C-alpha cells in the first residue's frame, strides 16, 4: 500500500462521515420546521379560542350573537354522526376484508375488486358527497338526516377500513392458521379464535385513521345538505344535523371578529374530540394486545 492511496481512502472516509452528519442535520431541520408549523397553528388557535372556551360554550346552541353562541348542537351532531358511521362501516369493512382475504380465491374478479377498492380510497370526498346526495338523500329518501350523513361518511371511509383490515389479516403468520387447522378447527373457528384476535390491534389502527378522517370531513356533508345553522341537538337518526367542521366554517366566514374567536374555540373542541377518540382507540388496542398474554 503506497502512501497516496492510503490518504485518498482516508479522505474519502472523512467525506462520507461528513455527508452522514450533514444529512442527519438536514433531517432534523426539516422535522423541526414541521413541528414549528404545527406548534404555531395550535398556539394561534389556542390563543384565539381559549377565551371563549367555557361550559356555557359547550352546552349552548348557535346564536346570532357571538358571545351567546355555543357548540352543543355541532358537538352532539359530530359524535352522533361518527358513532353511526363507525356502526355502519366497521361490520361491512371487516366482513368484506375477511371475505377477500380469507375466503376469496385469487382470480380475475377478485383482482378487479382489489384494484377498485384501492382506487376508491383516493377518490375526492366531494364525489362521495354527490353520491350520498343522489343515493341516500334522494333515492332512498333519507332526507338531510344524520343517517344520510353517516351513510355517506361510511362509504367514504370503507375503502380505508377494508385495506387496513386486509393488511392486518395478512400480517397474521400462516403458522398460526396451520396450527389451528391441524387441530381440526374449521375455517371460521380459525378466523374467529386465532386470526382476528391477533389482527385486532392492526384493524383498530385502521379504524382510528378512518374515523379521524371522517370527523374532519366538511365537503360531502355540505353536499348532502347538512345545515349550517341549527338550534337543536339531533335526537334521532332522522334529525337534521350539523357537525363541528361545518359550524367552524360558518363562523369563520362571518364578518364579525367575535365569531372568529368562536371558530377558534370550535377548532379546539374538534381537536379535543379527535384526541380523545384516538386515545380511546389506543387504549382499546393495548388492551387487546396484552389480552393474549395473560
Amino acid at each position, binding site marked *: 500500500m503506497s502512501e497516496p492511496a492510503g490518504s485518498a481512502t482516508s479522505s474519502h472516509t472523512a467525506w462520507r462521515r461528513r455527508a452522514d452528519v450533514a444529512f442527519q442535520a438536514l433531517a432534523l431541520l426539516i422535522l423541526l420546521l414541521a413541528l414549528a408549523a404545527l406548534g404555531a397553528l395550535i398556539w394561534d388557535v389556542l390563543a384565539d379560542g381559549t377565551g371563549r372556551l367555557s361550559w356555557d360554550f359547550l352546552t349552548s346552541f348557535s346564536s346570532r350573537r357571538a358571545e351567546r353562541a355555543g357548540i352543543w348542537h355541532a358537538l352532539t351532531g359530530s359524535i352522533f354522526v361518527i358513532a353511526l358511521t363507525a356502526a355502519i362501516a366497521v361490520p361491512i369493512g371487516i366482513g368484506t376484508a375477511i371475505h377477500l382475504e380469507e375466503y376469496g380465491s385469487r382470480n380475475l374478479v377478485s383482482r378487479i375488486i382489489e384494484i377498485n377498492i384501492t382506487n376508491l380510497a383516493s377518490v375526492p370526498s366531494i364525489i362521495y358527497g354527490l353520491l350520498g346526495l343522489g343515493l341516500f338523500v334522494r333515492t332512498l329518501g333519507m332526507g338531510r338526516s344524520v343517517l344520510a350523513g353517516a351513510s355517506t361518511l361510511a362509504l367514504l371511509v370503507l375503502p380505508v377500513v377494508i385495506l387496513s383490515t386486509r393488511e392486518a389479516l395478512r400480517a397474521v403468520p400462516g*403458522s398460526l392458521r396451520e396450527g389451528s387447522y391441524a387441530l381440526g378447527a374449521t375455517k371460521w373457528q380459525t378466523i374467529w379464535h386465532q386470526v382476528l384476535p*391477533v389482527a385486532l390491534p392492526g384493524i383498530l389502527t385502521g379504524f382510528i385513521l378512518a374515523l379521524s378522517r371522517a370527523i374532519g370531513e366538511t365537503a360531502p356533508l355540505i353536499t348532502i345538505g347538512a345545515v349550517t345553522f341549527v338550534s337543536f341537538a339531533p335526537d334521532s337518526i332522522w334529525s337534521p344535523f350539523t357537525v363541528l367542521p361545518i359550524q367552524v366554517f360558518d363562523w369563520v366566514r362571518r364578518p364579525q371578529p367575535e365569531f372568529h374567536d368562536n371558530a377558534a374555540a370550535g377548532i379546539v373542541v374538534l381537536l379535543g374530540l379527535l384526541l380523545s377518540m384516538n386515545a380511546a382507540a389506543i387504549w382499546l388496542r393495548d388492551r387487546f394486545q396484552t389480552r393474549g398474554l395473560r
Partner: protein
Amino acid sequence: MSSAARPPLASLGHLAARRSDTPEAPEGTPKIDVESMSFYYGDKRALHDISVRIRPNVVTAFIGPSGCGKSTFLRSLNRMNDIIQGTRVEGRIRIDNVDIYKPGLDVVQLRRRVGMVFQKSNPFPKSIFENIAYGLRINGMAGSSSELAGRVEESLKQAALWDEVKDRLHESALAMSGGQQQRLCIARALAVRPDILLMDEPASALDPIATQRIEELIYDLKKTYTIVIVTHNMQQAARVSDHTAFFWLGRLVEFDRTEKIFTAPAEKLTEDYVTGRFG
C-alpha cells in the same frame, strides 16, 4: 464425487416395480395405506407415484435431502396441503381403510384424528392452558370446566411438560423456551386424542438437550399413537424410528425396517445418502 451426488434419473426407472415388496406389507392391516399417489403444485409434479403402507403403533421416519417431497407427502396425510391453492392429488390415500380424498369426507374430522406438529413451534399467543384447551373447545370435547382442566393436565403429562409448567398454566405460552414450546405443541396435538401424529422436523430448531427430550417423548408415544416423522437428521431417524422411507426427487426410493435402511440398503442411492455421500 459429483457423479455420486447426482445419479442419473434413469436409474430410478425400476423403482416403481418393486414398491410393494416391503417386508411389513403383509403383516396385519396398515394404518395408512398409500397407493400410487402423485402430488402437483399447479403444473409442477412434486411427488411421483408413491406407494407405502404405514403400520399402526410404530414410528415411521421419512428421510431425504431438502426439496425431495417428504414434507409435502406428510402434509398430504392430513390434507394440510388443501390450504395451498392450486394443489392436486392423484392416486389414493386410505387411513383405516377410508379414502381420505374421497368427495364429501369431513376434512375437519380427519385433521382431528391425524394430529400434526410443525417444524417451527407455533404456540397460539395465549396462555399455556388456553393453548391446550383450544382444540378441546372447538371440537366440543370438554363438557365441564373440571373435565377441561383434567384433559389439559393429562395432555401436558403425556408430553412430559406438566411438572415444568403446572405453576404457570395461565402465563403466556410465548414466554416458554423453544423446546418447551415444541412440547406444548405436541401436548396440544395429543389433547384432541388423535390416532396418528405427524411430525415435520419437530426438533430441527432445538438444541441437543431439547432434541433428546423430544426423541424420548416420541419413543413413549408410539405405544399409543402411530407416528410419522420427517427429519433431516439421519442419526435421529436411526434413533427414533422403526421403519424408514427414503425420498429422492419426489420419488420413494426405498422403504424398509430402519436398521436395514441404515446397514444394508437395497438401493445404491439410499446407501450413498445414509453414508453421507450426498444430500
